[in-house]
């Protein structure tokens, strides 16, 4: 159950990134998680709600993209996907494989934010805007 510390790291990382986007609201945080990363998505989601409370990430969605194990099979001279974690063998030639190319990822791929658009106010425009409801009446 180290998902809470993982989620806390996510909150720290995203908060750090947000410094460049003042006032932005986080809508979504997208992760890439390999099946060998020892992380359970349900636990991540559960902890995410708690760990993001009263942070700029509050209310955002956590989207987890799960990556299968990919290993290089020297016999077949190609990268192959390992279907079962109970047997690290090439699905084609059935030889054992130990040269892993994917499956341990634990990273934040991207975040989706709503950015505050800078509005330039000038007196004339404000005056006109304020005057509009009057005119409509």
């Amino acid at each position, binding site marked *: 159950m*180290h998902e809470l*510390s993982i989620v806390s790291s*996510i909150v720290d990382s995203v908060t750090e990134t947000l410094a460049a*986007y003042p006032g932005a609201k986080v809508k979504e945080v997208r992760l890439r998680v390999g099946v060998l990363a*020892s992380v359970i998505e349900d636990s991540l989601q559960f902890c995410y709600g708690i760990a993001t409370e009263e942070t700029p990430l509050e209310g955002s969605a956590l989207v987890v993209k799960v990556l299968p194990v990919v290993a290089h099979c020297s016999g077949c001279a190609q990268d192959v996907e390992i279907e079962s974690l109970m047997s*690290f*063998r090439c699905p084609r030639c059935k030889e054992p494989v130990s040269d892993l190319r994917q499956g341990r990822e634990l990273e934040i791929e*991207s975040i*989706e934010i*709503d950015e505050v658009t800078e509005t330039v106010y000038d007196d004339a425009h404000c005056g006109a805007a304020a005057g509009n409801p009057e005119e409509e009446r």
Partner: protein
Amino acid sequence: MTTRIVELRRGILKKNDELAAGLRGRFETAGVLVLNLVSSPGTGKTAFLQRTLKELVTQGARAAALVGDLETDNDARRLAESGAPVRQINTHGICHLEAEMVGKHLDGWDLGKLDYLFIENVGNLVCPSSYDLGEKIRVALLSVTEGEDKPLKYPTMFNSADAAVITKIDIAEPCGFDRDTALRNINEIRPGIRIFETSSKTGAGMTEWLSFLAEERDRLSH
């Protein structure tokens, strides 16, 4: 408001990975072989390490250990009986060791004067697999009382290991331990891994294990 996607492509455990890389550099410079011992609670990590330290100290090798537990310094006291310097890391509820905890507990130790440093992780076969401690060799331990299918149940840990140790082989028979199945299962998860069959009580398998340590230590200096 405008919606924007900000690409991060950033490791979630980046901070730990960076600290671990720093430690690995320090260990390499100092020429100390560092091993991270992981297993379930009750596998016999401490007894195995106690025996290993005792044998190394007798040989005149310079070995030290850090031992992680949620609470108590019982294991550190047990290990210190070997005569090797030992420090306890209490994680206070955290289920794994992190590179930062290891770094903090090295203060005052001259790594250049050590041949071996053992880090006994918190007993847990899941969480410690995600945390690099800067070790050269990760050792996954499994006792004959745990069942031959343990590697299949915890593939993330066994696949990340560099060596496997089967403990308590002196009671393999009464436990009905199926050796062939256990060895086959370890190899299914981590093909070609070195496996040591040991008993901390009788000393069985310790010669092979100690030779392996000496070979790995020699490889550091070349």
